[in-house]
């Protein structure tokens, strides 16, 4: 019996179309648009000016506070403007626009770094570097990594969990990374274990990625402190709280963090970025993005520079197929539909999913039939139908008492609802109001 979390969960069709496609390198774009708010928390502060020449990896926006992150130039080139550019929601956000220098060789020469096993830095320096090099959680939430690693003296961490679950359908970015960069990831884990003095680490991988599990199992034979755990295929297992529960049977408190139960969770992508930052001085300027869709002929995985317009990615896989109705930034469950394709890839973009007419539409909303499906599948043990009703009727205080803020917005309730009720839309709305009420109360 494979491990999994006990409450709720669903199993949507996996559709991992690109799991056998090696990660290709996308041509360097002519212009990159780098937003200054790519992470949760305070946006970074721009420290370059128009017409400045920038090098690859140069800091162009400085962290604006503790919960914030540096942003580095993904290309060598010239800053052409600092402007408001439409982001994936359609609102305009501050961006740094950099024109790539076509003559600068550093843009086009791709150094393949050899695996470096010696850890030269001291623990404190490693953590400092993770903060300086703009590492954020690459699983999608883009939480600045140094905040997670900043452990207060009274907390003791006894386990590091590596999230290689990738429970979203369609996405294969983490899967491919695990196959191609397994040794580097393992090294990254050792760096973190050394820096934080953690006695053990577990890599959690869903059982639909047998090849990745086998790869790691072979590699960890000499590493007694690191384990690999195969997990039952179930969405949303990649959620931090679900993963901690599945692997260690520890329940993260409802307003707490995995830190409270002695665990730190990091995505494999983040671990790889940490490895590169610590061992090869490479800041976070590119990431793996899965570009996929049932009608996309050349759907594949790509190394993409942060700031590349999404339309470049779609052109690379053969253009937009006919009858495209929706383009999603992220996976089909948690991703957000894009308003246009000029939007740049950010640190949080794990996939671009192109959906055709027949899959894109929501069903007609009908009255709730009290079947209780949403309650059954909710991984947080909430009552989505109730939260939706309370939000719809404006009873936000009651919704707060029903723990609306613990919702992880996985969308399982909306997925299973036979009446196609927009449960998550209302819950998200309710959450936003309850958060405001809570802030005003304090």
């Amino acid at each position: 019996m494979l491990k999994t979390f006990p409450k709720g969960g669903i199993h949507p069709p996996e559709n991992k179309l690109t799991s056998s496609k090696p990660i290709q390198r996308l041509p360097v774009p002519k212009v990159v648009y780098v937003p200054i708010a790519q992470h949760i928390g305070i946006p970074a502060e721009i420290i370059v000016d128009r017409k400045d020449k920038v090098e690859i990896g140069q800091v162009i926006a400085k962290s604006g506070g503790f919960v914030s992150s540096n942003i580095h130039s993904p290309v060598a080139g010239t800053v052409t403007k600092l402007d408001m550019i439409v982001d994936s929601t359609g609102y305009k956000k501050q961006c740094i626009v950099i024109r790539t220098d076509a003559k600068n060789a550093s843009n086009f020469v791709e150094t393949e770094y050899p695996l470096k096993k010696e850890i030269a830095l001291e623990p404190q320096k490693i953590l400092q570097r993770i903060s300086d090099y703009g590492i954020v959680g690459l699983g999608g939430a883009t939480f600045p990594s140094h905040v997670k690693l900043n452990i207060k003296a009274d907390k003791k961490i006894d386990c590091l969990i590596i999230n290689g679950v990738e429970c979203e359908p369609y996405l294969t970015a983490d899967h491919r990374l695990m196959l191609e960069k397994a040794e580097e990831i393992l090294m990254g884990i050792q760096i973190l274990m050394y820096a934080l003095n953690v006695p053990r680490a577990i890599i959690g991988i869903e059982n639909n990625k047998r090849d990745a599990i086998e790869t790691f199992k072979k590699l960890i034979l000499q590493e007694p402190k690191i384990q690999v755990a195969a997990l039952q295929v179930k969405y949303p297992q990649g959620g931090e709280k679900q993963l901690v529960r599945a692997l260690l049977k520890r329940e993260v408190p409802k307003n707490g963090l995995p830190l409270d139960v002695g665990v730190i969770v990091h995505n494999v992508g983040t671990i790889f970025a940490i490895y590169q930052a610590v061992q090869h001085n490479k800041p976070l300027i590119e990431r793996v993005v899965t570009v996929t869709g049932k009608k996309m002929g050349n759907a594949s995985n790509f190394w993409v520079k942060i700031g590349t317009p999404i339309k470049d990615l779609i052109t690379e896989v053969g253009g937009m197929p006919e009858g495209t109705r929706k383009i999603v930034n992220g996976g089909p469950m948690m991703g957000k539909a894009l308003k246009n394709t000029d939007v740049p890839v950010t640190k949080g973009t794990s996939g671009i999913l192109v959906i055709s007419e027949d899959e894109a539409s929501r069903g007609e909303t009908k009255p709730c039939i009290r079947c209780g499906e949403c309650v059954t599948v909710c991984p947080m043990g909430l009552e989505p139908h109730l939260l939706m009703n309370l939000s719809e009727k404006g009873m936000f205080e009651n919704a707060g008492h029903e723990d609306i803020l613990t919702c992880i917005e996985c969308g399982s309730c909306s997925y299973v609802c036979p009446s196609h009720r927009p449960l998550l839309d209302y819950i998200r709305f309710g959450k936003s109001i309850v958060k405001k009420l809570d802030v005003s109360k304090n």
Partner: protein
Amino acid sequence: MTDSILYSVLLLASLGVTAAMVLYVVSKKFYVYENPLIAEVEDLLPAANCAGCGSPGCKAFAEKLVGTDDISDLFCPVGGNDVMQLVSEALGKEVAEKNPTVAVVRCQGACDVRPKTSEFQGPRSCAISALIYSGETDCQYGCLGDGDCVAVCKFDAMYMDETTGLPVVITDKCTSCGMCVEACPRDIIEMRPKHKRDLKIYVGCLSEDKGGIARKACSVACIGCSKCLDICPKEAITMVNNLAYIDPEYCTLCRKCVPVCPTDSIIETNFPKKKVKKVEVDQGAEVKSVNLINNA
């Protein structure tokens, strides 16, 4: 036989007396004094319970009026100056006089001038749409068209125009309670002074985008060209973030800014169609030929 009648009568009588005594003691002991003025003032208020004054209802507002010494910053927008004057007389306190206001919708991005570039299939509510994304058109400042303002209006003073997809204020019914202003996530609705014959001049756009971008998203957008700014004799127009704003305090409704606007984003309502100079003189005759652009 007579005994049983006697006993029951005595029993019931004693029960009644005991209960009366208990009630008397309790009513004396736990008596709550309420200022009779509160009920009096509440009767004067319009009983709309709209919360436009900031208090949760007319009773609460009456308590506040009676309880506070200086009521000059309290105002009932629904009752207006007349009601506040009565309240002032009843309480013997000074009240401030305010010019009557009316809600105006500062967006004219109808379906034909502001094309839809995407489709939203979620619940039709402005608050939810605004939370998720910038709306179905390319303008991130304009009306979302889901009618949250219409839904909160307690006076039936608003409706959605089906052809334009925009809300419309019925000036005669609008009490300027301000519920729609609060409900609108885009701050499109503004309270502007009510002039006679419902004359209004305001910028019907909130787009802070640069000219080209704003124009591309909506052909009647303010492009920030500053032509109105230059022509205004009273310096009532300000230009902030590529957006003109007519300050009602200084605007004299001279209408010089309206024809110079290249995108027709300055709205004038209920002015006579022809540009007759003697508007003020010739009131009675001209009322019939009002231009009902934005009025129902």
